[in-house]
């Protein structure tokens, strides 16, 4: 068990290091330099290049960056001259996390419910309805859903504020818009998983014991059906994170996604570098945690992996 965790941990570390390296060198390929403003006097530009260490050889810059990174320093933003990337993250990330957590909760709650209902009502009206909702959720991109939500629920019906992030009512539309795709993913997977388990022998055993339908569903079906669903939590989180890029843009949520999209348009390259590394590492770490949780929940993995 420990050995398994340790292996996973090492792989995650290597992944993050590769991510940092690849991102750093790719960014160097960006055309031009960050100080393209022609009004900038040459001496000032030189000074700034010197100040940011941009005149050093590339490998020096890389190791400097790596050194700073290990001290948790991602450097200054080039656009917001007096803000560090760290400050931006500290300020904006909690908002993104809040949005993401709401969306995750909605996804799990609605996704599992829809999936379970669909499976129990297999080939009946509710099944078709649930799967139709799921199909919409999978087919329609988050930014379209966000835009439509905004138009119908905020602009037309005035049920929620159109944009901004100033209280609970502001979180409803972006959270749901962000969650819909994940709701659909979970619902489909849960339904398939439940249907597979309905015809397993151990459900027959439970039936032969004289348990009621409810007891069989609760004790034998759902718990076993949830296990495979857990494995998509990783891709799901990646989905939610990239989803925040567009959702935050649409609803003007001052979260990290909005800064990320902005930095790409303004070629604020310390910001791009810092946020890419941050997002990437965040997902790698979360995936690692999910892996650990999975090992703890499923008794079969718990012992199987212990050996090798």
């Amino acid at each position, binding site marked *: 068990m420990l050995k398994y965790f340790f292996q996973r941990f090492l792989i995650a570390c290597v992944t993050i290091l590769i991510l940092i390296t690849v991102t750093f060198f790719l960014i160097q390929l*960006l055309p031009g330099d960050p100080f393209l403003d022609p009004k900038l006097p040459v001496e000032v530009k030189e000074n700034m290049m010197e100040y940011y260490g941009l005149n050093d050889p590339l490998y020096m810059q890389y190791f400097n960056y790596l050194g700073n990174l290990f001290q948790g320093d991602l450097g200054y933003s080039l656009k917001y001259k007096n803000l560090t990337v760290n400050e931006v993250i500290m300020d904006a990330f909690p908002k993104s996390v809040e949005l993401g957590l709401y969306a995750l909760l909605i996804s799990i709650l609605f996704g599992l419910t829809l999936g379970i209902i669909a499976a129990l009502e297999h080939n009946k009206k509710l099944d078709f309805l649930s799967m139709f909702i799921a199909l919409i959720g999978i087919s329609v*991109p988050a930014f379209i859903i966000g835009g*439509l939500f905004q*138009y119908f629920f905020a602009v037309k019906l005035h049920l929620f504020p159109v944009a901004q992030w100033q209280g609970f009512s502001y979180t409803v539309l972006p959270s749901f818009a962000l969650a819909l795709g994940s709701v659909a993913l979970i619902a489909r997977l849960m339904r398939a998983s439940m249907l597979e388990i309905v015809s397993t022998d151990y459900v027959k055993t439970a039936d032969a014991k004289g348990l009621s339908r409810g007891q069989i569903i609760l004790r034998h079906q759902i718990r076993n059906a949830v296990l495979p669903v857990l494995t998509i939590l990783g891709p799901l989180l990646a989905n939610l994170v*990239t989803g925040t*890029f567009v959702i935050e843009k649409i609803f003007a949520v001052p979260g990290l996604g909005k800064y990320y999209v902005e930095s790409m*348009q303004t070629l604020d390259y310390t910001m791009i570098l810092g946020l890419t590394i941050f997002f990437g590492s965040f997902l790698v770490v979360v995936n690692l945690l999910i892996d650990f949780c999975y090992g703890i929940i499923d008794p079969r993995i718990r012992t199987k992996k212990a050996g090798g």
Partner: protein
Amino acid sequence: MDIAKEKFRHVGKDNEKGELITRKSDSFWKDVWRRLSGNKAAMFSLVFLVLLLIMAIVGPMMTPQSYNVNDLMNTNQSPGKEHWFGTDSLGRELWDRVWIGARVSIAIGFMAAIFQTIIGLIIGGIAGFYGGRLDMFIMRFIDVMISIPYLIFVILIMVIMGSGIVPIVIAIALTGWLEMARLVRGQIMQLKNEEFIISAVSLGAGSLRLIFKHLIPNTLGVVIVSLTVAIPNAIFAEAFLSFIGIGIKPPMTSWGQLADIGMQVMQVYPYQLLIPAVFISLTMLALQLFGDGLRDALDPKLRK
């Protein structure tokens, strides 16, 4: 019971009937088509996609205007007789822009999907075929790459290469082949141990011949299924990139970009958002349904 004595004549067993398999079997692809054509949702989707393709070709020719010519006298006109889908803030025909956008989306979807499939086939094929250390190295590399969400890499590549159709295709193909390579490798690993391959090897078939004659045709099912997933994914990625402003840039257009512009004027001119939104959604839905149908038709065991 009274039955005539001559009826008790020995006839013995009827080997033919006894061995008879009562339901006839079709060839594999005929069977696939039969199952696919029986799937209403998939067939509707196919018709929709074909219509879309036709309109993408002829749509822009149906109006005298052009998708990239500004007409400042006729800005933000609502859809109607004059302007079928209305005009945007620069007076450009949305009708034409939608169909040009369709061309871009479809082209990107297919090209990116095909390129990533080719890359995935080659790398996955090599890993699966040669095995050993090379395989281990490739698979570890894929493991690492796959744990970073592909959109982040696509974004990074796009930022570096700048906007445009070709950079998008390259960015998607460069990041999308990972899953494909894994699938192909698994399939080939499994095939390698099967009898007909072993017999081909013992008959002296060369590696290349083996790969192209035996292994690739037998991975076709997996490839088709992942293509049906890759195409909508690529279309989605393009729309996403254009929407956040690093995909297709004006005066060229795409559905994602139309949605982005539409979003900005949504409160006043909602049709500018709704029209591209409907097209993106319906196309994604059709691709999804058709892909599902094709997957079920190819592998009826998976059917739920």
